[in-house]
């Protein structure tokens, strides 16, 4: 039987109060706030963030990336995420996409793969940054974020003792039915729908029921055997309506704090419920439903609470800048994708070199040591995730991402000394218009981010930010 063995959440630090949307656009506020990815975050970077807290790189033998909002139509996100996480190259990677059930689809696949005995530890990451038009309902409904789970073979339930974080997936069932729902055609630039009320009335509850009932039958369950329902929903009203209709008190849905994370939302809710013992039903919705019976034998801690609390507010203007709806981003250089590909061990896996002659760790990897010049005499080492600013500047002649200056967003750059060695020149991100405090000797953390797009190629690289 498969078990969930770790869970880690990434919610971008930025929050937009829905009241700010109303102030700027007049569109009625649904209350609370939503998370907003920084301009240099997408589903790939957030997936890396979510997983980096729980991954022991060498132990992972498969990675499944679940999202409806990958920045690529053709190019596997899972492969890029696995590389940034420095996972082994000989693992199975897959993207599961196109529906808000993608995350639970992936969890079923991971469970089956573990049960087959051919895979030991699978990383499943759900990540969303759903494109929406400004001043629409979807802008208020959705939030941005990612959740990572690891799935391994359970402890076969024979010991009876509650190990810490023992979470077994006891069973699952699915129901598939096309609904009008929400959609994006292949070349659409934002989420669309016919009329959300159609789904709310005829799709959501009916689909979930159709998925859950066979699970009850298969597992020989009575409603009384279930401690909590952990059900995602297309909107908060549908969620409350569903739980009330079966006589259960609604629980934390994170709409006021984060928004609905699309296909990552079932995992976000799951992260919340893994912290408390009990048998739960996990349900997702999108062209049907997936339902799971999960037994939290002993609580599994995650960083969910920390991620929800660690936040900085932005106004609607900055939100529009983050979404590239305002401002110009031009970049005079034409970097070579070939160099990017050739140097990927340094660029994506973040390896430097330790000179076997003088012992100095430097970055990036090159034939000769930057300190002593020794030729071809080094070992490759991955640099730490934590470092300290040796010096920095706030450069008004450029904007973040190496773009030409826009006069609003200066380029904050720092010389960072990493713990254990290696010095790298890096952009400091998650700094509001370069106006937040930054100083020599400040501690920073490494974060995988989108760099820029040039000549049609999308560049990613590591940056640093203040620790969350």
């Amino acid at each position, binding site marked *: 039987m498969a078990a969930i063995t770790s869970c880690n959440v990434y919610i971008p630090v930025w929050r937009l109060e829905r009241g700010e949307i109303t102030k700027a656009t007049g569109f009625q506020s649904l209350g609370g706030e939503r998370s907003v990815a920084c301009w240099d975050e997408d589903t790939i970077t957030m997936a890396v963030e979510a997983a980096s807290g729980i991954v022991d790189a060498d132990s992972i033998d498969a990675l499944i990336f679940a999202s409806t909002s990958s920045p690529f139509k053709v190019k596997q996100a899972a492969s890029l995420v696995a590389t940034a996480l420095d996972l082994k190259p000989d693992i199975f990677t897959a993207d599961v996409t196109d529906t808000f059930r993608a995350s639970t689809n992936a969890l079923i696949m991971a469970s089956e793969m573990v049960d087959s005995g051919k895979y030991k530890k699978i990383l499943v990451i759900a990540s969303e940054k759903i494109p929406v038009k400004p001043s629409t309902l979807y802008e208020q409904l959705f939030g941005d974020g990612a959740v990572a789970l690891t799935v391994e073979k359970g402890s076969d339930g024979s010991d009876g003792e509650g190990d810490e974080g023992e979470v077994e997936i006891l069973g699952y069932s699915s129901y598939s039915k096309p609904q009008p729902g929400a959609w994006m055609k292949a070349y659409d630039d934002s989420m669309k729908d016919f009329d959300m009320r159609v789904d709310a009335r005829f799709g959501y509850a009916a689909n979930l029921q159709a998925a859950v009932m066979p699970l009850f039958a298969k597992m020989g369950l009575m409603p009384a055997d279930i401690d909590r329902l952990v059900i995602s929903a297309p909107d908060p009203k549908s969620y409350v309506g569903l739980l009330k209709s079966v006589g259960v008190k609604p629980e934390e849905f994170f709409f006021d704090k984060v928004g609905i994370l699309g296909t990552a939302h079932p995992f976000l809710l799951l992260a919340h419920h893994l912290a408390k013992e009990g048998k739960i039903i996990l349900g997702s919705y999108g062209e049907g439903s997936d339902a799971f019976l999960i037994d939290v034998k002993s609580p599994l801690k995650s960083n969910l609470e920390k991620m929800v609390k660690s936040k900085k507010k932005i106004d609607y203007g900055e939100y529009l800048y983050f979404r590239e709806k305002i401002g110009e981003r031009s970049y005079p250089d034409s970097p070579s994708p070939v160099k990017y590909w050739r140097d990927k061990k340094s660029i994506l896996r973040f390896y430097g070199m330790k000179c076997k002659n003088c012992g100095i760790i430097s970055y990036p990897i090159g034939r000769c040591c930057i300190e002593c010049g020794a030729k071809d005499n080094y070992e490759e080492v991955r640099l730490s995730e934590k470092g300290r600013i040796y010096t920095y500047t706030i450069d008004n002649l450029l904007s973040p991402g190496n773009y030409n200056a826009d006069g609003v967003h200066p*380029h904050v750059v720092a010389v960072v000394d990493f713990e254990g060695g290696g010095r790298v020149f890096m952009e400091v991100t998650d700094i509001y218009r370069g106006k937040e405090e930054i100083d020599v000797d400040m501690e920073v953390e490494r974060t995988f981010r989108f760099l820029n797009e040039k000549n049609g190629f999308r560049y990613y690289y590591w940056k640093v930010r203040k620790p969350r």
Partner: protein
Amino acid sequence: MEVAIIGTGVTKFGHHWEKDQEDLLVDAVYEAVNDAGIELKDIEAVWCGTFYPFSGISGNNFSDPLKFFGKPISRVENYCATGMDNIRNAAFAVASGAYDIVMAAGVEKLMDNGSRGIPYIEGIFPPYMPAVSAPGMFALAANRAFKEWGWNREDLALVAVKNHYNGAKHPKAHFRSEITVEKALNAPMIAYPLGLYDCSAVSDGAAAVVLTRPEIAKKLVGDEYAVIKSIGMAVETIHPWARPSETFLSFPATVKAAKMAYKQAGIENPLKEIDFGIVHDCFTITELINYQDMQLCRPGEGAKLIRDGVTAIDGDFPINPDGGLKSFGHPIAASGVRMVCELTRQVLGKAEGLQVKDAEVGFAHNLGGPYSVAAVSIVSRP
């Protein structure tokens, strides 16, 4: 090595929207040739610098503007030290005896490529590295020096005030007005902590020198020549931010180039044996660190020199009596050549209104890139 400078030519530095690089080069070259009392055809070989490819690449950057064909001409490029590297190549060539009369020239038209800082060049840095403007590169040094030594923005402003005070009197300077500390401190921020007046300007200009050996110089111009005693040059890394030993409190290229130049010229105590200097004040912080790297004071004491007026034109060791890059702007390849022209004016006692008292020996210093290339020349009376 002793090489004679027998002719100098410098255009007005500034915004030459109406002229192209060819026009500026022709002006500087003919001024130098006329100053030497020779004809252009007497020049046997040329080293001409341009940093930006749009101002011409290869030896054709000189041959075509002057229609000077059939002679050896090399294009030189070595960041902001391009100008002095031209002279280094020309000087060693003439000293070797391979040629008798040669020219070193530099020209740059920065304004043709926009006025917001020096234009970014494609392919210098790896695609993933954060881009950094020239002020940004040197701001890294300023922030570390502030932390390490307690220097502040007023110390930097004093450098700008001093150099503009001098430059206001120079007929060929780009900026010819004095400024105050308040004006400098209240100016817009460019790259923290460097404000507008901490930065040298984006300018156009050209400069040229005619070089020969002293025995030929005597025949051509009598005693009216200056002597290049030495030129030191050092190239360090373009990634100082990747080198763990880099302190950002000293520029190793300058330290090494200065040592080389002092040694070649037989100078043991620069403070006593040299009378004044022209340093690369691309940014005010650079000038303060240059004081230290040129051995005019100990590490950490650079700011004290400016506070105490040591480097003022009437101080114990005048620095940038011409007004420096702060007043002239910095048309990259032209700057180093212009600095050597200034040394010549000073040691020949021709720096009207800006003459350093008893100026017999002076040095000029170029620092380029992210402090990766430096050159130092020492020039004296014959």
